[in-house]
């Protein structure tokens, strides 16, 4: 039985809750002086990143190693892909070496599903195009749950009544899509704060077009990275104008309630969406997001590679 983590929608409410609960176990491991357990000895995880990434790749690699799995890193630029080998041949070649899970990031939406057609290994989507980034959503949910001490277990609780403002380029952001899905599955109220040019064409979310309209009535402020490329496409007049309407400026930071969580998936553009020093914000949980990324990715790897079917252990027991 091969299982994969491709999107929050496919994971669903039950799976999301199960992984959050499992992440508590991994967080406990990571608090120890020797944060390593033998759970996935003999398993091999291959990172296949077709887009640049620092934190996500390192986070997955660390997660795998803390579970005692072996890791392989596939650097696209140094690979036979640059000699003209097809993606399918490359994946099948790596799979033939004995890989239990592929962690893939690709600029094309849907690439992880395609990869899943070619291999029997588990596939974990580490970001595909504008589409999905499920482990980011998981670490965001885990961070909110931990920081606000909310009860969210496999059977109970949620984010009912939690008001979230997600600010920035929603349209081109896989983080926005996945994290919004996860917040909604857990019952939070989410508002997208974005220029109309950076909203997806069809959606049913609440929308604000100025951060000032919502900043006094939120529990979580989630800032997205403003990508410079969008200027060239003339979707935003200038970074300065963006900051004026959507950036977290010193004035707006002064209006933020003490308990309001400030989140960012990174990498952060200081002076644009983050026009204050985040270290001075009382609700800054950006570093916790990074730490929790390891916890939730360990949970995902253990859930995919550490479980078997109900009946494969006939006769044995506790």
């Amino acid at each position, binding site marked *: 039985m091969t299982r994969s983590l491709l999107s929050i929608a496919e994971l669903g409410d039950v799976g999301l809750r199960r992984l959050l609960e499992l992440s508590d*176990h991994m967080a406990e491991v990571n608090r120890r002086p020797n944060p390593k357990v033998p759970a996935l000895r003999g398993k091999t995880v291959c990172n296949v990143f077709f887009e640049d990434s620092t934190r996500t790749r390192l986070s997955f690699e660390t997660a795998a190693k803390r579970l005692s799995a072996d890791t392989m890193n596939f650097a696209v630029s140094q690979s036979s892909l640059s000699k003209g080998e097809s993606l399918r041949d490359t994946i099948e070649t790596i799979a033939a070496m004995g890989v239990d899970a592929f962690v893939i990031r690709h600029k094309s939406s849907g690439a992880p599903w395609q990869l899943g057609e070619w291999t029997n290994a588990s596939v974990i989507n580490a970001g595909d195009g504008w589409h999905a980034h499920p482990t980011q959503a998981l670490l965001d949910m885990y961070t909110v749950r931990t920081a606000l001490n909310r009860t969210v277990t496999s059977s109970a609780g949620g984010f009912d009544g939690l008001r979230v403002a997600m600010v920035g380029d929603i349209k081109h952001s896989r983080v926005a899509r996945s994290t919004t899905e996860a917040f909604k599955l857990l019952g939070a109220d989410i508002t997208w704060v974005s220029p109309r040019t950076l909203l997806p064409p069809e959606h049913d979310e609440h929308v604000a077009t100025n951060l000032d309209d919502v900043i006094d009535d939120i529990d979580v402020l989630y800032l997205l990275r403003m990508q410079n490329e969008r200027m060239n496409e003339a979707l935003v007049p200038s970074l300065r104008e963006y900051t004026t309407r959507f950036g977290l400026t010193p004035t707006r930071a002064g209006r933020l309630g003490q308990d309001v969580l400030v989140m960012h998936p990174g990498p952060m553009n200081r002076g644009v969406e983050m026009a204050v020093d985040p270290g001075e914000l009382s609700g800054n949980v950006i570093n916790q997001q990074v730490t929790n990324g390891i916890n939730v990715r360990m949970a995902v790897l253990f859930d995919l590679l550490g479980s*078997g079917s109900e009946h494969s*252990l006939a006769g044995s027991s*506790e």
Partner: protein
Amino acid sequence: MNTPSSAGDAGKQVLGPDDVRRAITRMAHEIIERNRGTAGVALVGIQTGGVWVVEALAAEIARIDDAADPVQIGSVDASLYRDDIGLRPVSPGSVSDLTFTVDGITVVLVDDVLYTGRTVRAAIDAIGDYGRPKAVQLAAIVDRGHRELPIRPDFVGKNLPTSADEIVSVTADGVTIS
């Protein structure tokens, strides 16, 4: 640890609540005697079945030996150390709770039912990742036999011969086989 039988289940009760209480009292005495008190002794329950037993044993030890310092208690989840990972569904219990250092102390691992010994083996490995105890001892309310590893308990409430297809359930209200 076994699935508790539901109400109305036709399980056969083999020990009543008084029997369980007396077994815990005797085990508490044995733990104190064997370790000459409870200084430098910690009771660690294996998640999840051993947790209530640890609380019962600690309460009993406090009652018997009220001059002594309260015995340290904790719990350990062995699910990341099992030898059947990948062979059955992932179902961790609660998170490990060891707030004291285990270096140099005597850890009494506690479970409700001792069966194949595989969970105990995993729990010993888990404890080892927190430090190097002076000794590890093992306590279980019921030893139902069928060991698959060279592991034996130091403190037992009741030896209970069973067949492998039976389910043994242990609570403060008694022990049933179904």
